[in-house]
């Protein structure tokens, strides 16, 4: 499974959820990007450096490491299999699919908003 991660789109989606008062999970750009990278590498080990390729423009190494530990590992979304290497769990894949739904909801909502805006 190798799909590209559109960082700009993810940022817009996160901002949309933040505007709805959802600042964590779908509204957290770090969470979104980490989960996207982990989900993209389903069945393979994800290197921490690969996650940082996407997250560096939003957060430093420390806060990403902390998020991996306090959210992803603690909630069982990902397992640490070696130093700097993670693998996504089945539960993590559920979260990944949910994240895809949040992007679809954002797109649908945006499209409908634009249609309503054009209606006189």
């Amino acid at each position, binding site marked *: 499974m190798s799909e590209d991660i559109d960082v700009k789109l993810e940022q817009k989606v996160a901002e949309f959820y933040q505007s709805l008062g959802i600042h964590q999970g779908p509204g957290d750009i770090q969470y979104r990007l980490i989960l996207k990278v982990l989900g993209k590498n389903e069945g393979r080990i994800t290197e921490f450096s690969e996650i940082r390729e996407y997250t560096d423009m939003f957060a430093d190494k420390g806060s990403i490491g902390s998020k991996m530990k306090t959210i992803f590992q603690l909630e069982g979304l990902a397992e640490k299999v070696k130093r700097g290497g993670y693998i996504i769990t089945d539960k993590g894949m559920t979260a990944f699919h949910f994240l895809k739904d949040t992007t679809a909801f954002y797109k*649908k909502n945006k499209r*409908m908003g*634009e*249609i*309503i*805006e*054009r*209606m*006189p």
Partner: protein
Amino acid sequence: MSTGLLLNATICFAITISSFAFAWVLSQSDSQHNKKSRPALWSLITLWLLVGFTYLPTTIRMIAAYIGNQQLDLAMYYMASLPFSFVSVPLVFFILYVIVGDQKISSYISLLFVFFGAAYLILLYSSGVIGPTTTPLTSMFTINSDIAINIYLIGLFVIPTAMIIGLLFLIFLQRMPKRLRYRTALPLVAISFVFDFILTDMITLDDTMQLAARIFVLIGTVQAFLAYFPPMTLQEKLGIKEYEYTLYENDEEADYDEGNAEENDINV
């Protein structure tokens, strides 16, 4: 000379007046619209103007039939066919622009319907019509060209109607506030009502059906008014009334539960 013809003329006149009035009211709201909704607004104004211009000669036609002037009846039929043939053009532009959002694409596709309309007109004028057949309720003409009727049905009727239904489905499938749903769906239902019954009116060979179609066109025009200017009672019934409020300025005060006496004491 039948009073049914006068009733028909009155209905046509009511459609004319309400369509023009609606177009005028819409044009007055131009300043309230942003540049994104303005093209759709003007296509809607054009649509209602064309409806008005279709029914103005039709009103005169009915009066001509009442007084027994067949030449005026025929002349007015040809005159009414002109705006009628292009009714689908602003409608197609409106729907495409609202869905796609691209003015150029919408213009090019609606241009195709200008050709449809023109082809219909050329065939209508070259083949001529049979009639008028004056009945106690109306005066009717039969189009003397099968191709014109086919163009009319497919190009001017089926495609735009399918577009309206598509847009309506798109709106109904979305979860959105009731007020917005009403505001977007009802104008489309009204347009569809008017559009479909104008076409029924033009093609039918049954006088009662024609009169019924005209009554429905009038209902559709009223519906369009209600879509944009819903009366207060309707807003309350449908639960779409916008709650009027002023912001609470003393925001530092803590909220409390009215049922909890202890907290009331503390906060009061």
